[in-house]
């Protein structure tokens, strides 16, 4: 296969072997998988990093990046889709209601509280998605007190989340009927979440590496921590996973992003395979391994 043509203002070419090498590197280091169908996406971001770091070839850049932790993180960040939207990775919400919550409620009494934590919640699309998904798709929702907390390290993002005001692009995956039910359209074309829903989510600032701050949030039945661990090195990832472990009830679940895994860095959880996705469960039966 021929190398992808560089943009007009770039002389950098990514060859097939270089493409394979960066894909292999990213897979082994982050779990992110990029194949031929992502060739253009990978090439573009890689060329941007090569140019931004002052290099003019993949070989020089790659050698430098292997020894430069900061550049490694910038490279990984450039491959992470930062954009988020309502019902992103919807199959995980489906798994939540079809498989996880029935297990979570097995040992609860009707009327008990179920606690779910969206971490990091960014600008709020995920915790609000959880709320909307439960209201729309979980027949038992009225039997329980559902507490949803959204946390992030970025206070600007948290302010946006609390405001509940979104552009049309954030709502692109929501059925019109859902949009009509939970949003009102503003004069400038944005969408405002209804006050009942907005006020039902508690937003807090937390650094996942801060054990005491994490512990202050209490214990949760489910933590959604999607597409965050790929930003961390192994040591930090291990620490973050440990902190989340301590914030789960026994038998609690963690949702990670589709390309993430904690199997290599932590033995604290049992891998649970469901029809829709793979999850990690805090299981006291594994405590005496």
């Amino acid at each position, binding site marked *: 296969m021929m190398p992808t043509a560089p943009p007009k203002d770039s002389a950098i070419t990514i060859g097939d072997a270089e493409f394979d090498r960066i894909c292999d590197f990213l897979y082994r280091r982050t779990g992110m998988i990029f194949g031929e169908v992502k060739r253009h996406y990978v090439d573009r971001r890689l060329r941007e990093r090569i140019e931004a770091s002052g290099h003019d070839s993949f*070989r020089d850049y790659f050698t430098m990046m292997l020894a430069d932790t900061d550049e490694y993180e910038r490279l990984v960040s450039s491959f992470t889709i930062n954009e988020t939207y309502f019902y992103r990775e919807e199959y995980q919400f489906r798994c939540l209601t079809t498989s996880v919550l029935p297990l979570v409620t097995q040992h609860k009494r009707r009327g008990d*509280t179920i606690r779910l934590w969206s971490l990091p919640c960014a600008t709020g699309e995920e915790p609000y998605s959880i709320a909307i998904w439960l209201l729309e798709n979980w027949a038992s929702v009225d039997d329980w007190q559902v507490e949803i907390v959204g946390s992030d390290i970025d206070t600007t993002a948290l302010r946006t989340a609390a405001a509940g005001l979104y552009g049309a692009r954030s709502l692109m995956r929501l059925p019109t009927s859902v949009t009509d039910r939970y949003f009102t359209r503003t004069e400038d074309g944005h969408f405002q979440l209804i006050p009942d829903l907005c006020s039902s989510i508690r937003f807090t600032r937390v650094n996942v590496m801060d054990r005491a701050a994490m512990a202050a949030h209490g214990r949760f039945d489910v933590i959604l921590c999607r597409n965050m661990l790929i930003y961390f090195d192994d040591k930090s990832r291990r620490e973050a996973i440990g902190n989340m472990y301590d*914030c789960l009830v026994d038998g609690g679940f963690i949702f990670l992003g589709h390309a993430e895994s904690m199997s290599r860095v932590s033995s604290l959880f049992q891998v649970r395979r469901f029809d829709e996705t793979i999850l990690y469960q805090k299981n006291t039966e594994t405590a005496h*391994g």
Partner: protein
Amino acid sequence: MPLVRREQTASGGPHGNVPSLSSQDMEQRRQAALALAGDGTALPRLAAALAVETAAPVREALLDAIAGIGTRAAALVLLPALRSDDAGVRNAALVALQTMPSVLPGLLPDLLIDGDSDVRVLAAELARALPPVEATGILCRMLEGETHANVCGAAMDVLAQVGTADALPCLQVVADRFAGDAFIGFAARTAMARIRG
């Protein structure tokens, strides 16, 4: 609407009581270990606890706490776990040691000539945590004299990921030495191809 919002947390979190490494409660022991993370003066207590701990979550916290101390003495406490019969313990120790790259260069030469080939395999994997030039040098020196195919394979796997061009002659020598071993030949060719880019 069945969604509730509470400003106060529903539970007191995992730090409700003063934790102790000798507590009967696993969570308490885990919290005690985490509370001592990086405390060099606690190394003897952490080491003693690690020697008898059987609960994986506590053991992982102990390993992290010891690794957080970051000294050679702390690393020496972790090394026996590389010989454990329990794969989970070996892997947990490996991961903990990989977070101590500053002390690894002083430990790896002995580990890479250990009499136990399984330990040498893990030692090769530990080199992954070193800077590429350092990892390449250490692993190539090991490969010069290594005769166990699995150990060579492990070292070449690491070199394929972090090795520099300085590893190419060494990889060719290993491929020639194991000319009858299809796996080693494949591993060497793969490593060389990746390094060449």
